[in-house]
């Protein structure tokens, strides 16, 4: 008689919805044995303004981040009219970048500029200081979020663009893992049941450029996505070895137009037990048409804070200038100067000490105060919550 072949059913741990043998979770051995890979997910012709490009990521390894690159040429033809860029150019050319992982829909969902801001917030040794770019017709060397290796083609929010063909080369980082060093929030992709998608929505031409007369712009180019992955090694016992992949990292943008002069409380959504907020960053877009971000200063903003419960207000920044200084000190980048980004950061210095447990802080709100002398026109607050949570707690 031959013995029946039976499968072994050892204890398993569920990591991001995928069963992994418990004994395979050995972070020290994983980091000793894994191999980093920078991997092309493919290059696509850019679909054009207002279109969508989608990448289904290859099912292998453990993914920690993705880089989206746009490279192309911008042809400006004013003719007898004019061509001007808006403040959405260049980084909000990506109106929304969405990353979907293993049933947790849209763990990343934010515009291009917010992704750039996050990169400077996470990597405080990465700075844009000394990289000249044109903003509102003037050369600026601080706070543009530009790297020297990038090319904007034409300035941001700049009028009377000259006739010509300009090279455009832009990069955005999609922060799949919260931390690229210890891979917290990285995604296990080495299974056919995985569904990992990056979807890029491009902004409408009318929100990037303002044309008069017979002025015209044409942008053509390609988009590339590369991912940084780590191999899943085989351990000394013959089993696969993985790090702790029980977390999801989430970066979600919201928008509200419920604004007015004075103190405004905006609800921070998606609250729940097991979720931890790492930072919340925001911009206020104001003005006719597309508008521009309000600079983070005392003329525009009064008190900025976060609040929970009935009136618990742990951090209060006196004015926009105060928060701008605090942010610049944290990030070594003036995030509030050009793009008007402010951030209440709970992870930059010491996440263990400062991160907000969203299970014990009910009714979380972001508090912004718009000064009485400020004229609000089509004002919209765009704010992003960066959280980390146990897979299964929801996104």
């Amino acid at each position, binding site marked *: 008689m031959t013995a029946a072949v039976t499968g072994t059913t050892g204890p398993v741990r569920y990591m991001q919805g995928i069963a992994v043998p418990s004994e395979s979770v050995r972070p020290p051995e994983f*980091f000793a044995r894994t191999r980093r890979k920078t991997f092309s997910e493919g290059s696509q012709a850019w679909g054009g303004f207002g279109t969508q490009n989608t990448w289904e990521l290859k099912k292998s390894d453990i993914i920690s981040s993705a880089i989206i690159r746009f490279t192309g040429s911008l042809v400006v033809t004013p003719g007898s009219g004019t061509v001007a860029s808006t403040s959405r150019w260049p980084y909000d050319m990506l109106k929304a970048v969405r990353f979907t992982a293993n049933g947790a829909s849209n763990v990343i969902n934010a515009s291009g500029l917010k992704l750039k801001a996050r990169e400077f917030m996470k990597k405080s040794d990465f700075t844009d200081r000394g990289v000249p770019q044109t903003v509102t017709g003037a050369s600026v060397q601080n706070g543009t979020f530009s790297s020297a290796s990038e090319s904007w083609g034409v300035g941001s929010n700049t009028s009377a663009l000259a006739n010509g063909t300009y090279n455009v080369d832009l990069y955005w980082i999609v922060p799949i893992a919260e931390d690229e060093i210890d891979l917290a929030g990285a995604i296990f992709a080495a299974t056919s049941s995985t569904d990992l998608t990056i979807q890029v929505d491009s902004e409408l031409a009318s929100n990037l450029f303002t044309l008069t007369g017979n002025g015209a712009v044409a942008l053509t180019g390609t988009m590339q996505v590369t991912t940084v992955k780590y191999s899943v090694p085989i351990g000394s016992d013959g089993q696969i070895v993985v790090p*702790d992949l029980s977390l999801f990292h989430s970066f979600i943008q919201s928008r509200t137009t419920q604004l007015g002069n004075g103190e405004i409380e905006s609800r921070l959504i998606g609250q729940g037990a097991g979720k931890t907020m790492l930072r919340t960053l925001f911009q206020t877009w104001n003005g006719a048409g597309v508008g521009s971000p309000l600079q983070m200063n005392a003329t525009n903003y009064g008190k900025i804070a976060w609040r929970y419960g009935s009136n618990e207000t742990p951090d209060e920044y006196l004015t926009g200038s105060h928060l701008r200084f605090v942010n610049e000190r944290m990030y070594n980048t003036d995030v509030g100067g050009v793009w008007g980004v402010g951030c209440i950061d709970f992870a930059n210095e010491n996440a263990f000490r400062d991160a907000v447990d969203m299970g014990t802080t009910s009714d979380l709100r972001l508090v912004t105060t718009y000064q009485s002398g400020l004229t609000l026109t089509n004002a919209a607050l765009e704010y992003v919550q960066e959280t980390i949570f146990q897979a299964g707690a929801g996104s």
Partner: protein
Amino acid sequence: MATASWMSPSPTAKYGMGFASPSATRDDTPLAQVAGPAPAAKGTTQLLHPNNPMFWVGALLLGAFGLAAVSTSVRVGPVKVSGSLGG
């Protein structure tokens, strides 16, 4: 031989209490001391304790009406049997 090792922190060690197991659900956690009745008055919370006024109200009601309810009679043809306890 020592093996090369680099320890990554656990989620709790890195991100704090949001990842700690919720202590609020432990059912063996004693209640916090709060202001309340003196220990001598503890018996008043038990219904069948002589210190509880409701115990004596119950006894009075039982004496007045309870035993009366036991009283009954049975009639079968010309024979009548009756029994009564108490009132």
